[in-house]
């Protein structure tokens, strides 16, 4: 496995559903390992979650590479932290494996 560019989806496919059910908190060793790869700076896409209305509405944003430059906020709105985590997981899975996951 080349951690810089891609992962073998066969190794990790079994923990996708575990993440979808519980994106934040304790995870199996395999899912934890996958998330470490995804969340490392070289892979994470500089994503952040911007809270637009506390406890109700969030949007994804990308941090610019230049310090203090404006945040780039995406138009899609999320009703929970977990929904946004799943969306970012799907994007990272696609980037690392080339495979699409259902929304």
């Amino acid at each position, binding site marked *: 496995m080349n951690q810089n560019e891609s992962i073998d989806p066969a190794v990790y496919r079994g923990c996708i559903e575990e993440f979808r059910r519980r994106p934040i908190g304790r995870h199996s060793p395999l899912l934890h390992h996958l998330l470490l790869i995804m969340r*490392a700076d070289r892979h994470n896409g500089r994503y*952040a*979650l911007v809270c637009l209305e506390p406890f109700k509405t969030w949007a994804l944003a990308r941090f610019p590479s230049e310090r203090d430059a404006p945040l780039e906020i995406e138009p899609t709105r999320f009703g929970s*932290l977990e929904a946004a985590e799943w969306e970012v997981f799907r994007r990272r899975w696609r980037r690392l494996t080339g495979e699409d996951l259902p929304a």
Partner: protein
Amino acid sequence: MNRPTGYTDRLSVRPADTLRFMIGLEAPARYDVEIVRVQCGDINPEGPGLRYTRLDTPVNGTYDGLVQHSHIGSWASLPLAESTLAGATGLATAVWPTLVSGRDQCLLEVGADGVWLRLVLDGAGTWRLHLAEGERLLLDVSLAAPAVLREWRLVGVMIDPAGQLGLFACDLSGAGEERTAPAPADLLRRVCGADRLALAAAGARTAGRRERHFNGKVERPMVLHGRVSHRHVVELFRQPAEIAAASPVVAGLWDFACNPAGRRVAGLGAARAGELHNLPTRGMTGVSWDGRCADWREGPAQYGAIHFHEDDIADIGWQQSFALTIPENWSSGLYAARLTCGAAEDFVPFFVRPPTGKAANRVAVLASTFTYIAYANERGVAYLRGCELLIGRLRHLSPLEVYLYDHPEYGLSLYDTHRDGSYVAYSSRLRPMVNQRPKAQTWTAPPPSMVRWLNQDTHLLHWLETQGFDYDILTDEDLHAEGAGLIAPYSVVITSSHPEYFSAAMLDAFAAYKAAGGRLMYLGGNGACWRTDTHDEWPGAIEVRRSMNYTARAHPGELHHVFSGERGGFWSSLGRPEQETFGVGFVSEGFDSCGHFVRAPASFEPRVAFIFDGIEAHEPIGDFGFSGGGAAGVEIDATLGQAPHGALLLAVSTGLSDNYYLGADDVEHAQLRTPSLNPSLRAEMLYFETPNDGAVFAASSIAWSTSLNWNGGDNNVSRLTANVLRHFLRGGPGV
């Protein structure tokens, strides 16, 4: 939204004190003020909710709001004896630039009568000499070679009032470059009428303001007589300051190695004592530092540098908006000025302590104001590398953190790095600390409430008030200044959720309190961790130099605080581990979710039966809460083999995710860095007795207090805490 915000001149006041408020908006507008007593600041709809009581005060009302000017960026004003610059003159300094910023940075400015000479590092990293009359640039001389970052160079200006200017830069061998250009003699004569130099900033169009701040270290600015060769300048820098100052070619120099704690810098010869603004970093390794010395007190000559930053703040310098005299009949507690402008709202908090020398209650809560200052305007969510790995979930910006991101002029925390990448050694409360107030949510606090620091500590205040426990509030600053006598009258002292920043005086105060029979409830995690110092000449500021951390680590040669002379770092690395105060010390942290406690065998000993009254043997303790769903987590402590004699391990945490990582270096099998691999990564709830009928209870978890109010306060974290508090109130001092 036009958000009002502000700060007070103090965080801790007594009845009859007058407190000044500095309020600013993002655009001029009317805003409303009401003073409130705060009971809970957590806006989570599942919890107690935002709770405060409006108070009638003379300052309540509507005000015309200003856009305040934020004074950010450090610099030095360096006065000269009269007529020093008359005649052929040179200005030279050693410099270690740290940033090419895309904007001009002014290293040195001298001028008078509307004419300015500025030595500038331009936006592309080229040294330039600018002669300007007002805003009109008359002459621009530049060097061909770009400036080299993070290497020492000597740079200077030669002024021949007969009509020539020169700019030079050379390395420490004297090799370098010089450019000269003719300049109007009448303008140069006006420049040479100056009675001072400005170092590390240029004057702004508006009087009293500064701009074009310089980023980097500077050492020993000198005023030279006549024309001096580069090699001669290098020789002067290699000599001790007193020897160099006696050279016939030196009119005067400023020696930054002297007395690095305060606002003043020493001048020799025609150089008069200068004044520093906005707290640049002192005690910094200079040109001659060679690694043989790691303490500025032992080898001051090696610590002749000052590091200036465009984002230093000691006092943001806003104008006063109103002042409140604290009524005599107010009870001790957390108060705030609630500011509203349309739908925008902010709370400017302050603590009212009891009148001088009077303990109004038997319980004292110690508000961790040093911790609040240390984390003030913390921006790791934007700047910290690896922060998604740190928290085990997506980076999260609350509305307040988006606002903070849009306002870099409010400055940095002790967890950030300066714009030039260097570590932050100081933080001041004389600015809006916009993440230290009711309603604040922050990225390193686990969902759902996402509260930490001051706002989390309102959970404790709400619990005390709803459970019927009266309390006084004191602050770190009070304890640091007044020592053990401040807490001696209290039967019980309760800490905040994160009393992390401790001075030696505070450790001494707790030791004396415990020895005298005081009873201490440590309702937090990672307490008494970092050495913290203050200085009378920089009110409101603290100094912390870290020997280790995931960010903002000090240069290994610069670990000695200038405020005290003492070495900075973890107290555990300085011989006073946290266990000395609380029985436990920092072991791990995680920011995604929390676990809970299970009872340990010692919890069944009769002498601690009072703690578990009403709690079953196998009952999970705190498997609920507003931080990460549990009472055990965020930052947690353990005894790590250093438990006090006779201490009882009451309960241990379970259920922590592997996003908790090892934070201590004295753990067995330290190669195993997560809870599932290493059982040492756990919170250890502890109880021990101290002389004269004293005792300590340690919850050992930041998340503890965010479980107190679960289910309206009817839960076993609340029950256990109340059991301890009621028992402690039955004895101890103050009875």
